């Protein structure tokens, strides 16, 4: 996004444009793997690195994720800040999880709404904004 190689080239005929998608295929960084092997990650699952940067971390993208998650961050935020598609990030997260380099904290179960206390806390917090 901030490093969009197509910025400023919308004008005039070109053999590619924004509709063509990324210039480098996004799943290059996952070695062509398109699905997490074992688990899925909700957009608001929090991630926390359990280690500081490991010397043997598989790739710069994995390292970028570890650097970001030195403090708790949601999956959507990690994906946005490393500027990779969600699907790619989920595969990388699965690697980090299986290597024990990251911990996940899932949102509450999805089959029911939050309890009264939580909702009241949200209302209170919003009023205080």
């Amino acid at each position: 996004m901030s490093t969009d190689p197509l910025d400023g080239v919308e004008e005039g005929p070109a053999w590619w444009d924004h509709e063509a998608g990324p210039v480098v295929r996004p799943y290059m960084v996952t070695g062509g793997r398109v699905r997490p092997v074992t688990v899925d990650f909700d957009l608001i699952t929090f991630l926390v690195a359990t280690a500081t940067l490991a010397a043997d971390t598989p790739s710069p993208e994995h390292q970028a994720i570890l650097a970001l998650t030195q403090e708790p961050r949601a999956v959507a935020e990690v994906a946005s800040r490393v500027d990779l598609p969600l699907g790619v990030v989920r595969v990388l997260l699965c690697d980090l999880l299986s290597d024990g380099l990251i911990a996940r904290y899932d949102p509450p179960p999805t089959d029911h709404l939050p309890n009264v206390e939580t909702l009241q806390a949200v209302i209170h917090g919003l009023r205080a904004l």
Partner: protein
Amino acid sequence: MDSVRSDTAPVPQALKILVAGGFGAGKTTLVGAVSEIAPLRTEEVLTTAGVGTDDTTGVATKTTTTVAMDFGRITINPSLVLYLFGTPGQNRFWFLWDELATGALGAVVLADTRRLADSFAAIDYFEQRNTPFVIAVNCFDNDQRYTVEQVREALDVDGHVPVLLTDARDRMSVKNVLITLVEHVLTMVRSSVPA
């Protein structure tokens, strides 16, 4: 392994609210009005992979398209963080809505009075999923104003669904929309609990 974290900040509980509406209704503007961070964008790359092809299983094919979702964050307190996700405007990305709507606290349907019909799909979707929602009518400058009653009638929503006017650029106005939504959810939760 993942329960031992004594040295750093506690991990908050995350909640999400969806902001739905037609293209250009002001979803990202609304998110930006209350978010503590400039709205971030996350993207999903969609492929046409895996439809009866032979060796390409598990490998991305050439045909891709990118869907963007903008989102913001509000820290309610140290143990509670609220995320606001703008849904992709195009109807062909409904399946992404499923992921977004799963576990959502509720939704804001941002309606543009110039194109009210753009809201129908989102309203139907949340009604069918039983996702609590409110309808916020975005009042642009110099726009023809309708009353809440006129909008409610035009959209044919149930009487218990809150409908309110808003200015998606205005922090206080958007804050009020979110409070109305969470109060609506609270009412639903309370009424579903046997006395």
